[in-house]
């Protein structure tokens, strides 16, 4: 006797008469764009990853190129406008030189930015040949100074006179990729283990959940400490890097497994899964064709939110002297270098990596939040 002539779908959804069928991701993208903060964050994150990919091209100098003359040189900044003594001015991209004095008693160089000395900055300056991202041969850098031996320290120099900007850019590659790689691994374990637990339930589910609960109740630092100390001694920096990633994801998978399991549990009873089962589809097919796509967007959002934790963990490990170590350049090792009162007092620009950490983590979080909202507007 019902008046309703329509199937009871959510009021909002039916209010929209779909002119054309949007794909799930199209729909998600449209919803995502409404979060302005998330959208901005997406661009920030994308920019950071672009920097990571193009590190060699963007970094003005080699990250390990040192210079005795410019230890602890303060940031030059980049000037746009050149003012002549007669008051006229013109557009000219340049940096100012330094006036340097050595104080042998206090053991330091004092730098004064010399506005008189202008070192022009140019784009696409030729450089020593290098391989961009490891395989594209290039011999040009985005920007730099052409005058030989002229200082170019946009963000300042560290204790060895190495260009902080270049180191930051190369550190971005390591830190961001560790986050990404760690999350990918976590995702892999998380989906497989969480998926099986959620799909089959029963004793396996109980066991997995116990293990997850157990791992999560371990304080992470000792776990890292022990695992980091147990790494084979003859491993190279690269192997250590991967090992650290693995260690981080060993803990990271638990959260994702919980999310995946939860999704599987709720999806298992959904009509479309039942329908597929009645159709005689295999479990594998149901999982891969029906269930995973239906919550992939959600998983992506969860994964995005997990990356910042990895990045933070990397910096914490480096701080304790357990993670990546010099000469590897990562945000963690850069921050480790800045971990002293001297830096805070006299070279605060070396804290820039900290700002990068904050910015990327903020962006990742906003981005992840936006994704989650977009993926699942009713499931908050």
């Amino acid at each position, binding site marked *: 006797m019902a008046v309703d002539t329509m199937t009871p779908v959510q009021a909002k959804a039916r209010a929209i008469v779909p002119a054309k069928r949007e794909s799930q991701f199209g729909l998600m993208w449209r919803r995502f764009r409404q979060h302005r903060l998330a959208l901005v964050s997406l661009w920030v994150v994308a920019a950071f990853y672009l920097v990571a990919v193009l590190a060699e091209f963007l970094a003005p100098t080699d990250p*390990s190129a*040192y*210079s*005795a*003359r410019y*230890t602890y040189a303060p940031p030059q900044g980049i000037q746009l406008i050149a003012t002549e003594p007669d008051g006229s001015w013109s557009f000219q991209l340049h940096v100012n030189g330094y006036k340097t004095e*050595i*104080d*042998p*008693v*206090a*053991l*330091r*160089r004092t730098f004064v930015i010399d506005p008189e000395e202008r070192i022009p900055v140019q784009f696409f300056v030729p450089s020593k040949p290098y391989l961009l991202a490891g395989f594209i041969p290039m011999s040009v850098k985005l920007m730099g100074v052409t005058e030989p031996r002229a200082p170019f320290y946009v963000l300042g120099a560290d*204790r*060895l*006179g190495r260009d902080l900007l270049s180191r930051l850019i190369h550190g971005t590659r390591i830190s961001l990729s560790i986050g990404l790689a760690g999350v990918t691994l976590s995702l892999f374990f998380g989906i497989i283990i969480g998926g099986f637990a959620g799909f089959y339930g029963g004793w396996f589910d109980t066991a997995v959940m116990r293990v997850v609960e157990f791992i999560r109740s371990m304080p992470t630092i000792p776990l890292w400490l022990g695992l980091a*100390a147990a790494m084979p*001694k003859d491993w*190279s*920096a690269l192997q250590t890097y991967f090992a650290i990633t693995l260690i981080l994801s060993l803990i990271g998978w638990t959260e994702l497994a919980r999310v995946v399991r939860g999704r599987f549990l709720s999806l298992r009873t959904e009509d479309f899964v039942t329908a597929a089962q009645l159709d005689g589809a295999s479990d594998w097919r149901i999982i891969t064709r029906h269930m995973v796509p239906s919550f992939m967007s959600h998983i992506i959002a969860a994964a995005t939110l997990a990356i910042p934790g990895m990045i933070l963990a990397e910096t914490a490990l480096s701080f304790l*002297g357990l993670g990546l*170590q*010099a*000469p590897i350049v990562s945000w963690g090792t850069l921050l480790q270098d800045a*971990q*002293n*009162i*001297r830096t805070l*007092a*006299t070279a605060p620009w070396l804290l820039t990596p900290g700002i990068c950490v904050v910015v990327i983590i903020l962006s990742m979080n906003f981005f992840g939040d936006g994704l989650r909202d977009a993926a699942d507007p009713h499931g908050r």
Partner: protein
Amino acid sequence: MKHSSFGPSRGQLSLRLAGAVAVAALLAAGQALAAGQAPALEAMVASGELPPLEERLPANPLVVPADAIGTYGGTWRMGLNGGGDNGLIVKTVAYDSLVRYDHEWKTVVPNLAESWEVNADATEFTFKLREGVKWSDGTPLTTADLAFAVEMYQDPDYAAGSWIDNKNNPATMEVIDDYNFKFKFGKPNGMFMETIAGVDGIHITSLQKAYCSQFHPTYNENAEADAKAAGFDSWALYLQDRCAWGWETIRFANPDLPSIYAWVIETPLTANAQRVTWKRNPYYWKTDAEGNQLPYIDALDMRVSQGGVEELTLAALNGEIDFQERHIATTTNKPLFFDGQEAGGYHLGEVIPSASNTLVLQLNLNHLDPVKRELYQNKDFRIGISHAIDRQEIIDVVFTGQGEPFQVAPRPESNFYDEELAKQYTEFDPDLAAEHFAAAGLTEKNGDGIYLASDGNPVKITVDVISALRPEWIDMLEIMQLQLGAAGVEIELNNIDRTLFYEKRPAGEFDAQVWAGDGGIEALQEPRYYFPFSDESVWAYRWAQWFNGTRPEIAEEPADWAKQQMDLYNQVRAAATPEARADLFNQVLAITKEEFPVIGVSLMPNSYSIIRNNLKNAPESMFNAWLFPTPASMDPTVWYFE
């Protein structure tokens, strides 16, 4: 504080030590009668808690000369890094034994022993103790205590290691009477006086028989039961807890253990200590020139940081540290401390390191890989590497111009300084390097410009380093990596944990390890880089085992030149006079110069100490060494606050 003249210029380092010490005066000044003591002690004497000063001081107290006669009072504040920082305590308080060094670290002078004699072949050393010296509990110190210490150190159940139980040449002690005794050695021990004048001397006076014997079953049949009752598994563990040897950390955790130090423990160094405090020893046996009992300073206050030194740095900047060099006086912090002098009410003193070199690159001459062994044993290869290093650049970048290119050699301050040894192969000359590499058989290079070794593999040296110990090592190695890479030798940095670092040594498969140049001043006692001397001679670890016999299972017969050095050094040990020893050791060094076993980078630059402006008699210039424990060797007993 005047140190305007120390700068980057080379070779100008001279010692301007506080107080011209007239050693002879020490021996003669015994008659100074008890004149004064700290007001607090005076009050205790008045109330009868403490015997009068005359009864507490020995008949012939040791007189410590000083720039000025001080006043009693004050607390000396400093900072320990972490609970296990026993080193600072040893270097500040615990350096007091039979003999000691003068402030220049050159001559052995009396301390608890009034005098001594050495026989001709340096196998017998006869000592006379200062009569009437009391432990901090007021009981007299006699030869019985020393004999007990020897007995303990030689008991395998008592975990200690020192010259007393050196199995190559163990000491035996012969008690003559309460104040006279002999040390005897099977083999000549020419350097014995230097050994016990250094930090190693403290073992022999570290255990009071009356107190410590109660934990040993020989003296107390209930020792095992007592240990169980106290919660220990065995008497040995209990003994080690109550009466730990020499400078073991937990020694300073037991306030009941009587000592002969100037200050005695008030708040012990326990695992949970946030602060370790010391108060004056009322029975201390030294006086100033006017006969006033030392020390002047009432108490020591050591804050314990929890593993990070940043808080300590801030405290020092804030004027909360009275005298300290350890932990905080880093190159990095220098500008910070320099700027903070006025606000913090302190100034900076000069500290001369005992180490010769900032970084010693030790190629493993005993490498198990025959190709690498052959290459690393090739002197030309090492010379080539040395010439390929632009040392001045490293000095400029890492040390802000402090120091000079230097090999691993005795420092200019040392009697053994030899400019040729210190300076050979230090000039940066890529062509010369290439010549030497060619002489070492390296002619072919691969596409990356790296030489190919005789097995056709590129020459790649993996260098083990502990960056946690000295952060600048990584900086230096990173620069060397680029420099050597340009010269055709690939360097890989392997930044590892300390335990691992040590574990790799016996295995023999490491390429190279990096350490600082110990033995810059104390070359004779610490010749680890001059010939395969000890386990720390990493560059020839297996040869060193042949010499010192600690791990006979991996010992290898050394090259002839090394064997010759070992022979010479054994003669050094046997020589009775300093002159003879110096002569023989110079022969050892001559072979070192010829063979060039390890590669140094630069002379370890001077460091600095933080001295509060109201702290007087403190040294404006001092060494920093372990064998010559500073600042205790600079007589802080006569320092005082104004």
